[in-house]
């Protein structure tokens, strides 16, 4: 609970340090990515199941809500809910056969799924605008459009705190213990009476729904969405945020999202070298700090004491 309060304090006090709309924009993007990562961390960090296709779910949320709102005139809140539900449903349907696979095989199956979704998005240009992307109407409730960086900041901040709260509670619940047990050893967990298939599916569906929700919000916030957000590289970015921050650490996921979202903004001077730096950081972190930033720092602090 101390951590949650600290996070809430950071969210509440951060506006003091945010000088202009551009700062707010980065903070909002950090928040949205952090929401995805907290969800993804439940799957990767706690249940121990790798997914290289979560940008696909993010994209279903983003494009689903955008298409329903822009092409069929749905109210944005309804389209947002429907798109999130659609992503959860897809995750539930494909989750059962896919989650029987392990390790590399699971990674590749989720990767294949993500790529198929991104190919569909790029090809069905009648609905999605194809490679050029499409514009998305703003989020509105009863005629009042949510506009301005500040309003969005508070919405995203609130959602982030709520997601972290949900995740912390889930991890300490019997479900969370079951997830951690099957991360340790699936066989041992089953022997102890845990329905591993059901729990893995739960983590998969939940993380997919959270990714879709954040995707839909990102689309409505930015007012525009392109297939890049659905692609393989975005899936990788999400996984790297989780792993860089620290697997099986909810706050690690938030820190990872914050660092890796803000860093490229600061490094725009090195645009040319962005990929080299990103790839290099990925390799170096994994070789020298395989547990990720937050757990490694926590271990260091613990040793000091």
């Amino acid at each position: 609970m101390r951590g949650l309060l600290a996070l809430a304090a950071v969210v509440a006090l951060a506006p003091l340090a945010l000088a202009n709309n551009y700062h707010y924009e980065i903070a909002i993007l950090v928040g949205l990515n952090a929401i995805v990562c907290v969800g993804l961390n439940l799957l990767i960090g706690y249940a121990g199941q790798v997914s290289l296709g979560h940008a696909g779910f993010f994209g279903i949320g983003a494009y689903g809500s955008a298409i329903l709102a822009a092409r069929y005139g749905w109210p944005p809140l309804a389209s947002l809910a429907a798109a999130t539900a659609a992503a959860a449903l897809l995750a539930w349907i494909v989750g059962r056969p896919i989650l029987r696979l392990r390790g590399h095989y699971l990674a590749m199956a989720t990767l294949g799924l993500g790529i198929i979704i991104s190919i569909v998005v790029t090809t069905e240009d009648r609905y999605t605008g194809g490679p050029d992307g499409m514009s998305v109407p703003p989020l509105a409730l009863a005629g009042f459009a949510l506009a301005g960086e500040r309003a969005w900041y508070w919405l995203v901040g609130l959602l982030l705190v709520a997601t972290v709260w949900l995740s912390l509670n889930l991890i300490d619940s019997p479900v969370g213990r079951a997830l951690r047990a099957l991360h340790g050893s699936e066989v041992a967990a089953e022997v102890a009476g845990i329905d591993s298939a059901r729990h893995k599916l739960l983590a998969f569906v939940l993380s997919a729904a959270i990714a879709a929700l954040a995707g839909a919000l990102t689309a409505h916030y930015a007012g525009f969405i392109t297939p890049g957000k659905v692609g393989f590289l975005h899936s990788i970015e999400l996984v790297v945020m989780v792993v860089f921050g620290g697997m099986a650490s909810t706050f690690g996921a938030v820190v990872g999202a914050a660092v890796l979202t803000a860093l490229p903004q600061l490094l725009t001077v090195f645009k040319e070298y962005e990929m080299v730096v990103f790839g290099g950081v990925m390799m170096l972190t994994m070789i020298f700090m395989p547990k990720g930033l937050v757990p490694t720092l926590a271990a260091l602090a613990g040793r000091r004491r």
Partner: protein
Amino acid sequence: MSASLAQFLLSGLTVGAIYALVALGFSIIYNASHVINFAQGEFVMIGGMATASLLGAGLPLAPAALGAVALATLIGMALARFAVQPARGASVVTLIIITIGAAILLRGLASIVWDKRIHALPAFSGDQPINVAGATLAPQSLWVIGVTALAVAALWGFFNRTLTGKAILAVSHNRLAAQLVGISVQRVLLVSFALSAALGALAGILIGPITFTSWDVGLLLGLKGFAAAILGGMGSGPGAVVGGLTLGLLESLGAGYLSSAYKDAIAFIVMLAVLMLMPGGLLGGRATERV
């Protein structure tokens, strides 16, 4: 046989041969170390791009191609020595991220060292098409299929007739036992990465005149090669060849008769279906689980 069917089969076999080479690279590294090397596709890119740049510098084709293969081999060995070996025993996610990081790094370097343009390699022996059963066959296709066949034969000889090849097989069967009889696992890792990189570069050079090459071709080629390896059965050499050719044919027939827009999705749909229905692949053994 209708001319269009013959055309689809020929182009399917050509592309399939390339997938087979990439899939072989995946299988060799997987056997030696149980690592899936996501940077495999980048070796294909390096092969094509390095050849293009050496040709641009005025070298004839053969030395340029040799230089490109040598460069990719060195990079592959560096990857094994400085990125994979220090992380031995790490979890699957860790190794996946290390090799994906390497792939992104190599792509970034390629776009800086060379450029972001699309390059076409010249066909090895002219562009005069050959007529086969009403379909036209580019001479380059014969090069692709012929050189792939030679490479596969050479690999078979390497794994069955040489001590180093047998050492790699031994490590893939039982690492500890191999170490006990004096096989250096580190050297096996190095050799397997070198071999895979060389195969990838070879694929990139062969396909360069047909599909062109650029700094970002590695991702899709690598992933499709992986799909081929899964289809044939991960870790199986004959499986990689069969998987590659099958995938090439399915893709070409699917693009011809079903939908050309979804051509690139076919490999991944096949891969998902194989993973869900028969995870061992066409020629892979049934996996047993040790507790």
